[in-house]
């Protein structure tokens, strides 16, 4: 992955365009400004106020946090790619790190069960899956990608 910097909207096909794409170093201080920029892009789409204020920022923060701290283990020289793709029907957020990946189902716990309620960790994947319509993980050219899909209402 080479730093690509900012790229403007580009057409992918008639119904899909890349609205946002960045490559960032593995530093949690990068998360807030990136989430703010993506959320700003979302305000121009047919997404609800709640989707813009809650679903997108929280789910994207979780995906970025996982990519930086778990996928890339906080090694600043490793990069995380963030891409937002908009179609007629959905907003798709893709977060790619340089890690080996993980089993989405095996790593998702139920933080609402009585035994887990007072755990400090373990809510990230649960929140992503609760706030997005679909969460997928796949490998792409030795990168680990988490794809979050939110249907446009």
């Amino acid at each position, binding site marked *: 992955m080479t730093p690509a910097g900012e790229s403007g909207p580009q057409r992918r096909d008639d119904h899909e365009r890349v609205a946002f794409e960045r490559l960032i170093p593995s530093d*949690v*201080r990068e*998360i*807030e400004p990136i989430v703010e920029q993506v959320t700003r892009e979302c305000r121009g789409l047919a997404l609800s106020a*709640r989707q813009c*204020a*809650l679903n997108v*920022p*929280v789910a994207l*923060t*979780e995906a970025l*946090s996982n990519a930086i*701290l778990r996928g890339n283990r906080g090694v600043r020289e490793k990069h995380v790619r963030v891409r937002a793709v908009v179609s007629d029907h959905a907003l798709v957020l893709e977060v790619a790190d340089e890690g080996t990946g993980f089993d989405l189902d095996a790593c998702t716990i139920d*933080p*609402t069960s009585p035994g887990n*309620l*007072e*755990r*400090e*960790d*373990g*809510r*990230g994947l*649960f*929140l992503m899956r*609760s*706030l997005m319509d679909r969460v997928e993980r796949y490998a792409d050219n030795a990168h680990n990608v988490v794809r979050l899909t939110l249907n446009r209402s």
Partner: protein
Amino acid sequence: MSFSIKKQGEICVVDVEGQLIVGNRQELKQKVLDELEKGEKKFLIDFSQTGYIDSSGLGVLVSLSKKIREQGGELRLANLNDDLKTLFELTKLDTLFQIADTRERALESF
């Protein structure tokens, strides 16, 4: 993003301005733990100026709640907007914390 702590009577009131997320949660945790170490027992965190909270932020609140309880104190929350209320309901943390609609009601509840 910033955290400020003010005393109102015997209660430490913490205002969270901006987001409470992985990049700043330790700052909030340390500020509250510093006050706990000084002997403060009653804490109120006011979210009226908060944007969103991620799982790390929620985790810090859970951790602080436990540490404060262990010292015989109490942690209460106030002013969650509808989106933040949804977050607490999704994670069932609304059952773990005492949450007041306003700062005044929270202060009266101690």
